[in-house]
């Protein structure tokens, strides 16, 4: 029985003609759409998370430029370090590359490659988190905290939530690494890595926006 939602006419139930959703060469899941429900769920979650970060960014943008009028400093122009944050952006960008290479490896059945790239992605994520921690403590020592002014409140809320997302992603990737080391991630399980990859790339994409809005435009 063909599914109308798929642009390629494929058999939806049980036939191993390759995944319509472009994952590893798995059979079509027996779903009404012919798509992996877990992957669809992840995309729905990412759509909701986009709205979450969109509201936080809008809040920051609304408060930006008003701190000078109403409250005490420190202010963005005197505290944000663009060269330092550019390195953070580069680290997260590179982690996106290693994540997609991990997915490519598992889709080819390359277990060693999967583990290497998963480890690399986790390490790069941890380096990013370390950089965020250092930046936050520096800002705190310079007098900026959640309670200082509107810039502090919106900045730490936005970047704090993003950092939390990264931390969850690092834990997830390390878990996948352990599963792989125990032999539980074969080529047919590529969709598990793909779904983790979607989350990780989303985290990177959000940082692209945050880096531009908070650091560069300011």
């Amino acid at each position, binding site marked *: *029985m*063909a599914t109308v*939602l798929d*642009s*390629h*006419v*494929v*058999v939806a139930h049980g*036939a191993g*003609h*390759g995944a*319509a*959703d*472009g994952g590893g060469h798995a059979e079509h899941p027996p779903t009404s759409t012919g*798509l992996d429900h877990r*992957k*669809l769920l992840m*995309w*729905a979650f990412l*759509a*909701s*998370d*986009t*709205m979450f*970060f*969109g*509201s936080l960014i*809008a*809040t920051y*943008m*609304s408060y*930006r*430029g*008003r701190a*000078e*009028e*109403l*409250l*005490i*400093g420190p202010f963005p122009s005197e505290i944000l370090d*663009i060269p330092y944050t*550019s390195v953070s952006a580069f680290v997260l*960008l*590179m982690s*996106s*590359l290693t*994540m*997609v290479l991990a997915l*490519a490896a598992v889709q080819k059945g390359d277990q060693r490659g999967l583990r290497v790239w998963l480890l690399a992605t986790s390490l790069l994520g941890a380096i990013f988190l370390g950089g965020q921690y250092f930046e936050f403590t520096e800002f705190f020592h310079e007098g900026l905290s959640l309670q200082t002014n509107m810039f502090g409140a919106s900045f730490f809320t936005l970047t704090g939530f993003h950092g939390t997302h990264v931390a969850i992603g690092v834990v997830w990737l390390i878990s996948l690494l352990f599963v792989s080391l125990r032999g539980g991630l074969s080529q047919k399980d590529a969709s598990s890595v*793909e779904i983790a990859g*979607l989350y990780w*790339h989303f985290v990177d*994409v959000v940082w*692209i*926006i945050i*880096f*531009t*809005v908070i650091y*560069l*435009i300011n």
Partner: protein
Amino acid sequence: MADHAQPAAHAGAAAHHSEHPTTWKYVQIFFVLLVLTALEVGALYVPSIKPVLPFLLIGLAAVKFAIVAAFYMHLKFDNWLFTAFFVGGIALAISVALAFSALFGTFWQAPIGHGAPEIEHGTARPEGH
């Protein structure tokens, strides 16, 4: 119907899988993203483009966003339903952000309340504000 669908499914699936980027393609895309990031940071140090700097930065960020979504997140090669989900969320997010910003006067930077007097850098706000 299923018999007619299977050859089409094979052709569609084969074409579909051949579209996925190679490892080298992923690396090339990374360098494109790197160059775009360098352009973003470099633009800050070019005084002549300051009037259009916010638009340029947002444009570059949007391009990077699209590249990561299309190639690294495989939206370009996947079922349209995934794109619909994500783009729908993005559209809602942008709408909410714009509405919120308009509500709080972000675009015209109207001062909150009746207008604040000049405040010296690093001092507390005056009484009554």
